[in-house]
């Protein structure tokens, strides 16, 4: 009895330590972003907003933020309809080749991202897409597609295709019956997939390191360069903002997913 009690105390202790290890690094950034000190001192000597001012007043950071947001929005607008159409076809069609296509659409999750990045860089160099906006958007569409496909396929699993048949037998055409019957029922998983594609585009770093440049550098590329060269609490301010924004999006996505569909 005492032995199993001791065992469960050890289990709780280890788990607590692991959870602290997981959470602490994310929490530590917040106080540092509000620090008044130029160099790292913890706890901060006094609090200030200077690093947030530094970020919002710097045209290079602002330009990078605009690029990131533009890329992410365009990525969602392109990847979501493509992913929904593909997921719909994969779930409804009896064609054998759909299995292969399904696997192909998940490739971006399987191939190490550094390999994808270098490969895209070579192809873009040939066709003149390096350091351009369309190049950046296309790459992020590719990387975001699997999230949309996975999410929508999960949503379609609980959808009964017979309902759409009914709508069509009542005279609706295919497109209308999809929008009137199917889409409302899988809406949540479509939104969730789109949010994941958005987050993936905001976070994407490695491909951007290779293919972005000039005025079309996303935030992550500038952050990476800044982290390699000198550490400045401006990064902490940006990190805090990014983390807060992505948590809000995830909460939104999971709230939608929970609502069903």
């Amino acid at each position, binding site marked *: 009895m005492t032995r199993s009690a001791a065992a469960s105390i050890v289990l709780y202790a280890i788990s607590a330590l692991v959870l602290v290890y997981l959470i602490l690094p994310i929490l530590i950034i917040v106080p540092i972003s509000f620090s008044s000190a130029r160099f790292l001192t913890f706890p901060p000597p006094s609090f200030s907003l200077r690093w947030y001012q530094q970020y919002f007043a710097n045209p290079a950071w602002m330009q990078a933020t605009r690029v990131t947001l533009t890329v992410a929005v365009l990525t969602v607008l392109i990847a979501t309809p493509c992913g929904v159409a593909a997921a719909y076809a994969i779930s409804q069609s009896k064609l054998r080749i759909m299995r292969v296509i399904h696997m192909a659409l998940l490739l971006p999750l399987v191939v190490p991202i550094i390999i994808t990045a*270098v490969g895209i860089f070579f192809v873009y160099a040939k066709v003149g897409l390096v350091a351009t906006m369309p190049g950046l958007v296309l790459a992020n569409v590719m990387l975001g597609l699997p999230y949309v496909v996975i999410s929508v396929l999960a949503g379609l699993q609980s959808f009964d295709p017979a309902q759409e048949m009914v709508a069509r037998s009542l005279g609706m055409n295919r497109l209308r019956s999809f929008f009137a019957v199917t889409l409302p029922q899988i809406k949540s998983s479509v939104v969730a997939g789109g949010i994941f594609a958005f987050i993936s585009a905001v976070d994407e770093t490695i491909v951007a390191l290779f293919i972005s440049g000039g005025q079309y550098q996303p935030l992550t590329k500038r952050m990476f360069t800044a982290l390699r060269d000198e550490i400045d609490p401006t990064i902490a301010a940006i990190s805090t903002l990014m983390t807060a924004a992505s948590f809000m999006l995830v909460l939104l996505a999971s709230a939608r997913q929970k609502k069903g569909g």
Partner: protein
Amino acid sequence: MLTTSVPDPSQKHRRREHGLMLALVSPALLVILALIVLPVGWLAWQSIYHDGFTLENYRRVFTEDVYWRSFALTFEISLAVTGIALLLGYPVAYLANSVPKGWSILILSLVVLPFWTSVLVRAYAWLVLLQRSGVINQLLRNLEWISEPLALVHNTFGTVVATVHILLPFMVLPLYATMQKIPNELMQAGASLGASPSLTFVRVFLPLSLPGVLAGCTMVFVLCLGFYITPELLGGGRTVMVSMLVSRNVELYNQFGAASAVAVVLLLSVLAIFVVVSRFISLDRALGQK
């Protein structure tokens, strides 16, 4: 008799249906073909063709010291990271599986939370914590446990600490999913037959959780093989993992052939691991846990 010339309407309908489905899937497929299949194919081609076929790039990868050491280091780090992630992740998954629902949701959300913070943000956080003037060194000095700051980052140690942090959710989630499916009655049966809790754990629970262990370890190991940002920012230039070899060959030395060959060997290693593991467990499941 004119029977065969009339096309079967149902067959015509089916063909139209197939055409529609292929049309629906084609935009996504086109993006994938153009932006990942073609680029990776290009790499493969470039690794063996430069003004004629050559295996020179592969000869270099397999014989030159720099390459060998980097591959060896990458596999060592990936093994270490996988082992540590399993040791840290198993108790957490076990606890999440054995506590009431509300608690397990809390534990799992804490595990998934870092998942949604940028890898860059976390690299920054670890620099803040681990560097010479960082939080941990300051703390240890204030406690007078050490007199000189410890070298916790810009080396392999820092890389491993931050990499485990990033990959731990990929271990915990498949483990938890597998443990959820182990019926509680089995443990009770073991206990009722007189086995001690530790014996039922070792003989019943542990073997049944092995598919989750395999899925988690595969995900962590494979993802770690291709890690780039963390070793680049926290490795201090000495921990040259394979991904860095690829990027340096492209960015610093313009050795496109060599970079491609390294990338191909890395990709083949990853695919080989997936193929071997998929003989034991369903990979859809391992990937689907994400």
